[in-house]
């Protein structure tokens, strides 16, 4: 057994087959360190709400070759999603959540995010384009609660997130709703 290998009893501990108290005293420190390693495992939730829309769009697109709800060329290439990674444990500060916004808009020159979290300022939160694929992303820390937002494409076109529920804003536009 090399110095980097755990003792077989410690492996049983990691497997949950024995407890720390059942380890011989001389293996306790090794066992505690090994358990700390498991404590570092990222078990946070991964949410991919846009997958439903994207899967169904691909299936429908193949069937019809053209989707009736994708008349605008830019929108035809746009898909959006918000991924928020929630930790399995309480986080500090207590109510902040990491949210990742993604918009696929290959023909856009710039994309930003406007919402209740930035006073609907269309210039406050630009998304960054990654590579030539037309994927625009922004990662924000938002307080837990409900937020409304929309993507602003090229400073003019307000696009709701197809991967999120939406509500009427009372002025003829649809806002996406994100509940954290």
């Amino acid at each position: 057994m090399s110095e980097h290998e755990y003792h077989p009893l410690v492996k049983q501990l990691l497997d949950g087959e024995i407890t720390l108290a059942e380890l011989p005293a001389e293996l306790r420190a090794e066992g505690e360190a090994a358990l700390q390693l498991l404590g570092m495992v990222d078990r946070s939730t991964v949410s991919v709400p846009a997958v439903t829309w994207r899967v169904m769009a691909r299936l429908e697109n193949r069937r019809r070759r053209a989707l009736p709800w994708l008349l605008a060329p830019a929108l035809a290439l746009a898909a959006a999603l918000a991924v928020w990674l929630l930790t399995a444990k309480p986080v500090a500060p207590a109510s902040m959540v990491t949210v990742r916004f993604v918009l696929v808009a290959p023909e856009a020159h710039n994309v930003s995010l406007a919402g209740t979290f930035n006073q609907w300022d269309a210039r406050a939160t630009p998304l960054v384009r990654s590579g030539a694929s037309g994927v625009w992303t922004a990662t924000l820390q938002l307080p837990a609660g409900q937020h409304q937002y929309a993507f602003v494409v090229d400073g003019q076109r307000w696009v709701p997130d197809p991967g999120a529920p939406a509500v009427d804003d009372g002025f003829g536009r649809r806002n996406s709703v994100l509940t954290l």
Partner: protein
Amino acid sequence: MRPESQATDGDIVRSVLAGDRERYAQLVERYRDRYARYAARMLGSVDAAEDAVQDAFVRAFDQLSQCKDPDKFVGWFFLILRNRCFAERRRSRSEASLDAADSVAAADRTDGGAETAERRRALQHALLALTADQREVFVLKHVEGLSYGEIAERLSASIPSLKMRMHRAYDRLREELRDHA
């Protein structure tokens, strides 16, 4: 007749095969996040995981008539996703390309300070150094919380062989993390 929200996987699969394609969205909705986490930990990237899950659902739809037991759709779907993840790993051998969001998420957890965040990141990188077989067992047991028995059933593997993989993974992780002890 059961309400749609209570429909079993088998009900939905049979309905889709009978021509109600739109109901497939219910299956996607039901399982996308659960399996996105598996894929994210296997591929080291949320973006890659999202693509893998999407492709797997499209492929599953195409092959749905080959799902021998519609009530066990999710086990069958998992194998499709698993193949997709392993193929992706073979295709892109660019190790240690952790997704920025993962890193952000780890760094943002301040319950143990910067040192803890750094160790979390180190563990994420170390996981990418495992073989795909080793990492899969580790992910299913320590991220998804499955027992060896459940993993064995899902992968059609024996428990002793899974334990061997896992124990090698423990040693490899310890070696990879020796500078972070």
